[in-house]
């Protein structure tokens, strides 16, 4: 049976992005994650503590709430990045995809746009959760136009560039490392690091924030992916009434921050596209080494032996004594060691925690010796933030 020849067209972008979106949306885990986030936002909003003077749907509180929830974006983006960056390798269809004729920019950008679009759509579950919660709270006279403006401000101006950045970083890591695990590890590192930085820059969304250096604060406000520091700096002096009524402005600091983030994204994407190649990874050497000759000789000898070898083999008894059991156990331990401990990912996690713990120890020592040094924000501070901010939210679920 013959099949008809079809002329090729160049407009593959739209179709590829459509596939990426459908691929992500059709995962049960996506729907599950979306529902969990929606309900989490719903319960946290419903149980949010505000005094009588504070209006829950006021711009300040809406933006603050969305920014706080957006701190967890790296984990969500890691989930989508893993599907987009590592799926060819994981599934074993790299050779089919790479040899298909698609150019690398189209392939990579369609996947990147897929991650960004899915993450952004996912983020919209937070304002939806908020809106549902307000409906059940019998709040009077919600100004929906103001709420919409606040949501647009938070989602488009603060969260969207952060999604662009996190997606480019995690997507790049995925393509380079070809490991889902590595993507999640790096996402966790970013999540914790960002919280630690928020703590040491005095962010009001962290429990017991400390300012270690005004200079560092200024530097961080330039490169803060969420621009949370710019937002809180702008609103730091607002009274309750102002928080209820005023909308944050698009200040010069905010514009510069957003431009720097977009520049960083463009740089990262350019790097990703230029560094990536549609070739299967192999390491080759032009010189024939002594090892090569040895391997070749061994191969030839084995091949010759295989052709000359008999078609039967001597039977052997399986040992069941304690020595054999011990040797089997040792072999299993060795296998586990090679697949878990002796890996780059384990080394990376250990190095990160060693760093965090050493800061903890140093902090403890500085504190105990009363050297009049401002304590560094460390694990205890991150834990304190969960203790004071996050745990009450979870308790509200019950």
């Amino acid at each position: 049976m013959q099949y008809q020849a079809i002329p090729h067209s160049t407009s593959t972008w739209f179709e590829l992005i459509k596939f990426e979106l459908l691929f992500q949306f059709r995962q049960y885990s996506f729907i599950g994650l979306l529902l969990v986030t929606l309900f989490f936002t719903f319960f946290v909003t419903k149980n949010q503590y505000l005094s009588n003077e504070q209006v829950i749907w006021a711009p300040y509180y809406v933006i603050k709430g969305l920014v706080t929830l957006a701190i967890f974006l790296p984990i969500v983006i890691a989930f989508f990045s893993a599907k987009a960056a590592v799926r060819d390798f994981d599934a074993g269809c790299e050779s089919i995809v790479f040899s298909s004729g698609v150019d690398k920019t189209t392939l990579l950008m369609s996947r990147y746009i897929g991650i960004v679009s899915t993450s952004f759509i996912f983020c919209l579950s937070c304002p939806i959760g908020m809106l549902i919660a307000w409906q059940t709270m019998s709040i009077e006279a919600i100004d929906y136009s103001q709420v919409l403006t606040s949501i647009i401000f938070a989602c488009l101006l603060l969260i969207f560039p952060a999604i662009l950045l996190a997606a480019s970083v995690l997507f790049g890591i995925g393509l380079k490392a070809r490991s889902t695990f590595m993507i999640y590890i790096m996402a966790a590192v970013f999540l914790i690091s960002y919280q630690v930085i928020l703590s040491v820059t005095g962010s009001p969304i962290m429990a017991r924030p400390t300012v270690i250096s005004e200079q560092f604060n200024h530097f961080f406000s330039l490169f803060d992916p969420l621009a949370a520091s710019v937002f809180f700096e702008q609103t730091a002096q607002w009274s309750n009434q102002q928080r209820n009524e005023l909308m944050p402005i698009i200040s010069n600091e905010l514009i510069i921050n957003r431009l720097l983030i977009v520049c960083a994204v463009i740089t990262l994407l350019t790097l990703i596209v230029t560094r990536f190649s549609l070739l299967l990874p192999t390491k080759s050497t032009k010189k024939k080494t002594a090892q090569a000759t040895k391997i070749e000789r061994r191969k030839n000898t084995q091949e010759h032996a295989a052709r000359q070898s008999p078609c039967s083999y001597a039977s052997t008894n399986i040992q069941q004594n304690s020595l054999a059991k011990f040797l089997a156990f040792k072999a299993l331990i060795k296998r586990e060691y090679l697949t878990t401990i002796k890996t780059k990912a384990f080394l990376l996690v250990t190095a990160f925690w060693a760093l965090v713990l050493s800061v903890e120890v140093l902090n403890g020592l500085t504190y105990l010796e009363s050297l009049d040094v401002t304590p560094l924000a460390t694990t205890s501070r991150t834990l304190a933030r969960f203790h004071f901010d996050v745990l009450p939210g979870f308790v509200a679920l019950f």
Partner: protein
Amino acid sequence: MLLIDNLSKTYANGVQALNNVSLTINAGMFGLLGPNGAGKSTLMRTLATLQLPDSGTVLFEGVDTLKQPHYLRPKLGYLPQEFGVYPSVTAVDLLDYFAILKGITDKKQRQQQIEQLLELTNLTQHKKHAVNGFSGGMKQRFGIAQALLGSPKLLIVDEPTAGLDPHERNRFHNVLSDISENTVVILSTHIVEDVSNLCPDMAILANGSIVQQGSPEQLVANLDGKLWQKTIEKQDIPTVKQKHQVISERLVAGKAQINVLSEQQPDSDFVLVKGDLEDAYFAQLQLLSSSNSSNQSLIAHC
């Protein structure tokens, strides 16, 4: 149409997968025969522009495809020896995706070709099922379908009939035969029968080098008057092997039928037989193996 010139590839672990491989392949079926580990898959990956050689060139329609892979890829259909699929994606959706990657953007035409290919590979009734749930043979048929997307001008199929039942294998042979009328089809396999049935031109690859090239008839003709056969008891095989250059042995009704390559009749019990492609293939490998072992003996003596 496809010109391969002095391709060499050595992997980082020292294995020399390709050693100055040169071939000229015209439109039609070309069989590449070789034992496991001969370098067939490395050559296929290199031709499919998925891997760069250390040296050498590949010209397709006069264009160096290693320097300009984007010239070849849209005209290429590739079925790798081993491939996987995305989890939970149906056959029709995955073919649709691969078709988009190939640049077939017109939805109607795409759907039409996908339907035809699903029918061609006998997968129409499974088109709404996830491919990762397919059996080995069904997955292989899916691989064939994706390789034929976009009507390739160069079709590279690496061990395509592995896992196919005889009926599907015949069906696939017919498909390949039809396509090869105006397409370069490279069939890489270690199944001699596939090459024998389909390919007017072929080469034998062993230890990374082309050891013989020509039509199957030419290769078989080399054995004329040199192939001797004898039926013996199984336990006598080692003794006969020590005395003669046995190129192959097969069991017939519980007894061993051995083929020996010799210019003269090795023994009065041996009868002269006409060889087939399998005998020519085994003879070539046996000669190569013998020359390697004698070289190694020389090296050992040195």
